């Protein structure tokens, strides 16, 4: 897309140059790049060859698609959609049936090693992949074909990144993450969260267009710019946490005053994402901002290890260990003390029955 064309396009949609640069500056901010990167980003978005995207949906709720379509900055979503070529996207494309399938196959064939695969949803390997089939082929098959030939694969949402809700115990369909379903997949980037934040997906693509490389990742292959800090570290309620001011019940005084949700089960201390900074819905607000604890949606196994959501410590396969550990622990310590006391009584009895070594022996040692 030439500069001229993009300019026209922006104008046609009522986006001023100023708004566009504002968008580029906000992308630089999300990416943690200096202000000076704004121009490079603008140039890249305007002039660079559009990356070709194939967006696959498997065991998902289309939440990431929804999130992406409603990307922040009104109509800048469209802009990004226009500056990438979304060749295949089941929810968005007009084509259907075998027509759609052939578009995907053609794109893969003609652009081997050049396109970007985006995967939304987990991939089941139960029943030989039969739990999720599209056009008669299993998700497993399609994922291996499409991701196998991609320059990079972006797993959007926790289901694609880590298995997510479909993979929660007992994982009836054998749901897998992209990393597990497509072993050896090249340049995998996990954009976990439920759903992935559109701002972050957009920023990732902008990063790639600008710098021609993928950003540094954490150990779960998530970009550090979005997952480098915990929710807790950037939380606006953190001062209340450090002070020791906690919500004890929904709607109590502390809750009305916006104090810390730690005791209501907030998983912010165990969850890495930039929600407090980027927020949701065009920066309107975010869960903790409106009084709800973080659910830990961006972490591996979140459904299994972050639940119960309104309790701080987790359940373990049906046993609510987190809830009972303190009363049980305290009782066991008490029990140990009681057992010791009883044993002590036994010892005293034994001593009085003359069964033990007489005290005088100690004196013998001091000779």
């Amino acid at each position, binding site marked *: 897309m030439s500069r001229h064309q993009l300019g026209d396009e922006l104008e046609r949609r009522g986006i001023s140059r100023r708004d566009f640069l504002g968008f580029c500056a906000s992308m630089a901010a999300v990416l943690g790049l200096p202000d000076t990167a704004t121009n490079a980003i603008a140039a890249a978005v305007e002039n660079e060859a559009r990356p070709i995207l194939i967006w696959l949906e498997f065991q998902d709720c289309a939440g990431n698609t929804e999130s992406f379509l409603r990307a922040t900055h009104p109509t800048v979503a469209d802009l990004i959609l226009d500056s990438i070529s979304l060749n295949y996207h089941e929810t968005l494309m007009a084509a259907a049936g075998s027509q759609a399938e052939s578009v995907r196959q053609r794109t893969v064939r003609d652009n081997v090693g050049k396109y970007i695969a985006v995967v939304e949803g987990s991939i089941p390997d139960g029943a030989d992949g039969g739990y999720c089939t599209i056009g008669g082929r299993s998700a497993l098959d399609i994922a291996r074909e499409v991701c196998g030939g991609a320059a990079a694969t972006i797993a959007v949402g926790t289901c694609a990144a880590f298995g997510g809700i479909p993979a929660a115990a007992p994982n009836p369909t054998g749901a897998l993450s992209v990393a597990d379903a497509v072993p050896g997949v090249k340049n995998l980037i996990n954009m976990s969260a439920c759903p992935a934040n559109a701002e972050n997906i957009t920023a990732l693509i902008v990063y790639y267009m600008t710098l021609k490389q993928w950003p540094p990742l954490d150990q779960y292959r998530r970009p550090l710019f979005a997952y480098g*800090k915990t929710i807790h570290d950037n939380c606006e309620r953190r001062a209340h946490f450090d002070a020791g001011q906690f919500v004890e019940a929904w709607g109590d005084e502390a809750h009305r005053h916006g104090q810390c949700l730690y005791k209501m089960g907030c998983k912010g201390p165990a969850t890495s994402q930039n929600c407090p900074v980027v927020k949701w819905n065009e920066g309107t607000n975010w869960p903790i901002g409106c009084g709800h604890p973080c659910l830990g949606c961006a972490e591996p196994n979140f459904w299994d290890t972050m639940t119960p959501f309104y309790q701080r410590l987790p359940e373990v396969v049906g046993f609510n260990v987190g809830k009972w550990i303190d009363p049980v622990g305290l009782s066991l*310590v008490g029990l140990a003390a009681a057992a010791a006391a009883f044993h002590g009584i036994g010892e005293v009895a034994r001593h009085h029955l003359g069964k033990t070594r007489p005290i005088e*022996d100690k004196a013998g040692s001091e000779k």
Partner: protein
Amino acid sequence: MTLKRVYVWELPVRLTHWLLFFSILTLSATGYYIGHPFISVPSPAKDHFVMGTMRAVHLYAAIVFTLAVLARLYWLFAGNRYARFSEFIPLSLWRLRSLWRTFLYYSFIRHDPDDYPGHNALAALSYAGIFMIYLVMIATGLALYTVIASASSPFQVFDFLVPLFNGLQMARLIHHIGMWIVLIFVVAHIYFVFLSSIIEHIGTFDSIFSGYKFVPEKEAERS
């Protein structure tokens, strides 16, 4: 029966014991608060730092604790025979017999205690167990610490521990359960120390301060 004075606990054993004692008390008190913040303070937030202080003290105590555990582990290889590795694992025949004897003694079936100058075999086994728990506490603690430390902190090398425990929340739960196991051990341990001091009167209680025990001559020579 004559008792002989034997030097059993060298300085590193005694020193690490008491460092561990004080750090564990501190870690348990602050850890319990972190897990279960029972003190709530009035507004404004800027005037208080209760949780912040608890966490800071927990982390400083954790440094003392970890270094003491490492020192004690080193002394498993460098210490005298009573401090060594082999003391803690009842593999030899006489140690197994001592284990059994101690058990019978505590069960009121036998009436003469095992007078071995070092840890009796049953106590030693419980210490081996508690050393394992120490390592679990350190590993889960370090896993939890990776998200507290800055991204450029050298402590990030421990981030591989997080998936090992199936995520931070499971690490947290294990860490929390570990505290109760340690505290149950502590109650039993202190009871048995006093028991053995009062009933066996071989100077067990004093030994962890002075290093010396008083044991029957024939036992002192046992190896």
